[in-house]
Each structure stands twice: as structure tokens, then as C-alpha cells.
């Protein structure tokens, strides 16, 4: 019910709302100076709902009035020029910004109908539900096994060693890393190649059974082959998780995502089905970015 009122509010504020991603109402081209979100921000049966999100670093506003839904089993790509706030926004979704001093978030971010910024919400289980993979692979200085077992251990997901072994194997298999590391589970995770390290970090995230996986430019430190392995992985993971991915590569967004959101200097400019955004962007700024005029 709460969700519904928020949606209505968003409607009266003039945020573009449609029925479903496939059938957006056709409109005229918005003005270049317009900062209202173009396209459809809602989806049916969303997993996460963001309404009127503002983020401030001290006095500086990094995100202005962003409203967007994250659907089930979909990959949502966030693109935009450097410094446009896409990383800041994605870090709001599991409250990683809490660790940054002077960072303040207003607005509503609902996960399954509950505002995650509500005072009653505990951030620890939230982050277990909404996992995150970072730009630079950051395996812990522990063995491959311990890296993956870390999350299940702290959350008590396994009752004994055998169960833990099983969880670790399943996570590594899902991350497509099992065959490469099964013989060296007890060697340091930092000894793997960059692409393997990143898949290890994905396995580590999967091991705690999240519902949503946030990825902040997961391939920007990797070579093209490792990148394509990770992209295939993202494509497969979509069947079980909702995935938000921030990327600098428009090709990557086009390859892995179903919906794309374009950010510009803290504003969410345009949201829509990925193929529509890339073939027929409506906002002039989106068009400029996609055609490579800046960014």
C-alpha cells in the first residue's frame, strides 16, 4: 500500500510512469535542458523501488531526485559519463555509503516494501540481501576457500564443515570458477588472475544467498577475455538474482542488460528497455552520450 502511494506521488511530480517496459507511451522529444526522467521507471512486481532519492556529500548534492524500480530477474545497467553519480547511487542500494563520512541520503528506497533507510532497519542483514561486487577485485588476503566461506560463516549458514564445503562449491560453480580453482582451494585468493579474482568476489557474494547483486564497474580492471567470461556469468545469474550493474562500456550495457538507465551530473535522465535506449534515445543528452559526442 505504501509503495502505491509513493508511485502516485511520483506521478504527480511528473516522473514518467508507464505500464511495463515494452509499451512506453510515445512522446515528443524533451528539451535539452530538461532534467526530468524520460521513459518508464517502473516495472511490474518490482524488487526494489527508489523514489525521490537525493544524496549529499556535505553540502554538495551528488544525486538529485532519482526514482527508479529494479525488477525481478532482470539486469539493470546504469551508464553515464564519469562523475555522474551512478556509483554513488548504486552504493545507496545497500547502504554502503554509510561508511563514507558526511554522506546523507534522503528519499525512499524500498526493498520488498520496507524502506531500507528506516531507523528500524538493520544494515547487516540488508547487505546480506543486497550483495555488491566492486570495481577492483578485492579478495581478502585468505585462501580461495576462506574467501567464499567468509560470508556463510559470519551468517551461520552452515551447520558443519560438510555443509560449508557444499556452499563453497556451489557458489564457485555458479561463478564459473570451480573447475579452475578446485585443486587450489587453499591457496591465497590474491594469487589468482584479475578475472578469476573478480569471479571469486562474485562467488563470495553469491555464497550468502543475496536477492540482489550490485556491480560497480566489475570489468573495468579486466582484459577483454576475462570481461566476456564475466558478462556471460552475469547473463546466467540473471535467472536467479536481480542485478544492477554500473558500467562505462555501452557495449557491455547493451550485451548484458534488459533495462538501461542514463545518469547525467546527478540526474537520472532516461530509463528504458536497453534496445530502445540504444536505438532510439529520446533525451538529447542520452543521444549525445550514446553517439559518443561526450562522455
Amino acid at each position: 500500500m505504501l509503495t502505491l502511494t509513493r508511485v502516485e506521488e511520483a506521478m504527480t511530480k511528473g516522473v514518467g510512469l508507464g505500464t511495463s517496459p515494452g509499451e512506453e507511451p510515445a512522446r515528443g522529444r524533451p528539451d535539452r535542458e530538461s532534467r526530468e526522467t524520460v521513459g518508464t521507471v517502473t516495472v511490474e512486481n518490482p524488487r526494489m523501488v527508489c523514489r525521490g532519492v537525493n544524496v549529499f556529500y556535505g553540502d554538495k548534492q551528488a544525486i538529485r531526485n532519482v526514482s527508479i524500480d529494479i525488477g525481478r530477474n532482470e539486469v539493470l545497467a546504469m551508464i553515464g559519463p564519469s562523475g555522474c553519480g551512478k556509483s554513488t547511487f548504486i552504493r545507496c542500494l545497500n547502504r554502503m555509503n554509510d561508511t563514507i563520512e558526511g554522506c546523507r541520503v534522503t528519499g525512499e528506497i524500498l526493498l520488498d516494501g520496507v524502506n531500507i533507510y528506516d531507523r528500524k532497519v538493520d544494515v547487516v542483514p540488508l547487505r546480506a540481501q543486497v550483495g555488491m561486487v566492486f570495481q577492483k577485485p578485492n579478495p581478502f588476503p585468505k585462501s580461495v576457500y576462506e574467501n567464499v566461506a567468509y560470508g556463510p560463516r559470519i551468517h551461520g549458514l552452515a551447520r558443519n564443515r560438510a555443509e560449508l564445503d557444499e556452499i563453497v562449491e556451489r557458489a564457485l560453480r555458479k561463478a564459473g570458477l570451480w573447475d579452475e580453482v578446485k585443486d587450489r582451494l587453499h591457496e591465497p585468493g590474491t594469487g589468482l588472475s584479475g578475472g578469476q579474482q573478480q569471479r571469486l568476489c562474485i562467488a563470495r557474494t553469491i555464497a550468502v544467498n543475496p536477492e540482489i547483486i550490485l556491480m560497480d564497474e566489475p570489468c573495468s580492471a579486466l582484459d577483454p577475455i576475462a570481461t566476456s567470461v564475466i558478462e556471460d556469468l552475469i547473463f546466467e545469474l540473471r535467472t536467479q538474482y536481480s542485478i544492477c550493474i554500473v558500467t562505462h562500456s555501452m557495449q557491455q550495457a547493451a550485451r548484458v542488460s534488459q533495462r538501461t538507465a542514463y545518469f547525467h551530473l546527478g540526474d537520472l535522465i532516461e530509463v528504458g528497455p536497453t534496445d530502445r535506449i540504444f536505438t532510439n534515445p529520446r533525451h538529447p543528452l542520452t543521444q549525445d552520450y550514446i553517439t559518443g559526442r561526450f562522455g
Partner: protein
Amino acid sequence: MPPFVLLAVLLAFSAAAYHLGRRRAFALAGAGGRAQRLHSRPNYHGALVALWCALPAILLFALWLAFESQVITRIVVEGLPEPQRSLPGDRLSLIVNDIRNVAGGRFEETAADPAVREAAATYRRLLGLSRQALAVVTLSLAAAMALLVRRRLRPTLRARNHVEGILTAMLVACSTIAVFTTVGIVLSVVYEAVLFFRIIPVGEFLFGLSWSPQMAIRADQVGASGAFGAVPVFLGTALISAIAMVVAVPIGLMSAIYLSEYAGKSFRAVAKPLIEILAGIPTVVYGFFAALTVAPFVRDAGGLLGLDVASESALAAGVVMGIMIIPFVCSLSDDFINAVPQSLRDGAYSLGATRSETVRRVVVPAALPGIMGGILLAVSRAIGETMIVVMAAGLAANLTVNPLKAVTTVTVQIVTLLIGDQEFDSPKTLAAFALGLVLFVVTLCLNVIALYIVRRYREQYE
């Protein structure tokens, strides 16, 4: 000309030589500032002339001052009347001392022996002559070298390479000073220790269980003949250091964790300097604190519990020493914890780890090599610490690991042995050097182990 004025003049010479060389280089390059014709830029030509001007002269200056006094003394002794000249070595050196003191005006001249007075006059005259000669020789050497090198400047001269070579040589010389100092210290200690081991066998010293270095000064005295078994002394050091570490490691490490992971900016800004003040307190003051406050407190507290605590207990000294090294452990651990990349913390937080889980399972293990290194440094420091134990731990060389008893440490024994009233070549005094040698070896081993641990962890984690 006093030596320091001479040195200043030399520096002025070399500054002038720099400009000389630079001007010459510009002249060589030709009109219109075509410095590209030169192999090296004019600055390097100037620097080359300046270095050649200053370095040989300064070297000569240093050597001259180093050997001046010896040479003059020998000449003066040669000039002494026969009876004094043929005196045995130690008496002669007394007379030489007198001569120098009279010459330096530190003695009333009239009080001295006429022969000494005459020798002193000679000494003073020779010294004056030597200083004049020094000024003339060094300054002319500097000028000659500058002019010589200036004449050899050519456009093709590889002045830059020469200057770089000279600078490298100077850096090497400076770093070898530190090495040679270490070697010198080791050799001097080893020399005296060998003298000691000629009297007391090494095995008896290292494994003997009784330490009682009092020796009879006169043959008719009833006294111990001296027992030099170092085990009680080293056990005392180990005991006190262990107590110190038990105090310092948990407190230091936990305050470091609090400061770096939990504390707000403003609290940290106040607390960190306050903790570091602990490191600035002179150890003598810690000694008062241990002897006058902590030791009686420990004794009384032990009395309440029905324990028999010596008024100079290992516990009191160890606790105060532990407090003293808290800032070491805290400051070093804090640095290493801060050096753990934020990305590792983010990784743990993003898996739903709490702060303490992140700290225990990720941050501290990642910082562990550095923390271990810091702890071992603190151990070396505790073993070498002297003042606190001199004042609070006592002198009784008890063979015990009971922290409530009085024990003594290596450093305390070295101090008491050396401020004794015995001849310098008695075993009692020489024992200090043997103790010092073993202490040196122990701290050296600790440092090697620390380096080994740090390297092993680093290989594992990088």
C-alpha cells in the same frame, strides 16, 4: 685562523669555483647562449669545479685535524728532558695530559713543573704553526684544484656524469659510516667479552645458574669469589619483558583498532597525540612511577590477597614497562591498520559483516605482518630498557619466574657492574661486556625473526 672559519672560507671558495666553472662553460658554448653544444649543461660544469675545489681540501682538513695532536705530542715528548722521556707509558701520558692542559690554559701555569711549562710553550707554538700551515695548504689546494679543473673544461667534457659519480660516491660513503659504526661497536664489545671469556669459560657463563659478581677486592677479604652464570639474569629480562608485552600488546592493539576503525575524527585528533605523549615521557620518570607508586601498590594489593610480594617486584617493573611501550604498539599497529585498503573493508561490509567481524576476520589479519613487526620492535625495546628496571626491579639475581619476586635484568647488571669500584680488567667489569654481547645477539635474532615473519606473510598475501 680557527678551523671553523677556515671551513667557511673553503665553502665560499667552492661557491666562487661554481660560478667560475659555469661562466667558463658559457664561454665555451659561445655567444648567443648555444648551450646545446656542450655535452653537459653549464650548471654541471660549475658543480664539477666546485666539488673538485671543496672535496680534496675538506678531506685534507679533516685528516690534518685528526692527526695534528698526535704529531705535535710526539714532537713535544721528543723535546722533553731525559728523566721524563724515559718514564713508563702511563706516567708519561699523565705528563702529556698536564702539558696539554697547561697549553690550553686550563691549569694555573705557575703551578706546573718548569719542564712541563716549557713543553707547554712548545706545544702551543707548534699548534699555532700547524693551524697557519693548515689554512695556507688547504686554501691553496682548493684554489689550485679549482683552476686546474676549470682549465680542463671542454664542450665535450662529460661533466654531468662526473658530478653524478661524485655524488654517488658521497652517498656510499655516508651509508658506510652507519655500517662501520655497527661493526665498530660489535668489535669493541667482542674484544672485551673475549677478555672475559678467557677468565670465565663460555659454558659457565651461558649455562651457569648462579649470578653473584662480587669479587674480593683485597686478598684478605672474606667474600664470594664471584659466580658468573647468566641464566638468572636473562631469565629476569625475559620475565619482565614478557610481563611488559602482556600489558602492552592487548592494550596497544585494541586502542589502535578503536582509533582507526571506530573513533570519530575529532576524538582521534585528541586521543592519538595523548597516547603518543606516553612515548615522550623520559624513562627515568617511569622509573619513579614504578618504584614509588606501582611497586608499593602491587605489594599492598598482594598483601590484601594474602600474597607475599617483594617491594621490588618483577610485576611492578614489567607493568610500567608495558605502559611505556603501549604507544609503540599502538602507533605502529594504527599505521598498519590504516594501510589496509578500504576496498577490503567494503568487501566485508557488502557481505553483511558487522564492524567487529570485519575487524577481526579481515582488517587485523591483513595488517598482521606489520603488527607482528611492531610487536617485535617493542620487545627489543623492552629488553634493552634500563632505567625502569634499575629503579623498580631490584638487583637480586633470583632464578625464578614468579612475577611477585624481585629479579634483575641484563641491563641493570651491566649498569651496576660498570659503576662499580673495581679495576677495569677484573672479571666483574668485563662481565658487563659479555652480557652486552649476548644481549646484542638476542635482539639481533629477534629482528631477524621479525623480518622473516613479515616477509613470509607478505609472500602469502600479495
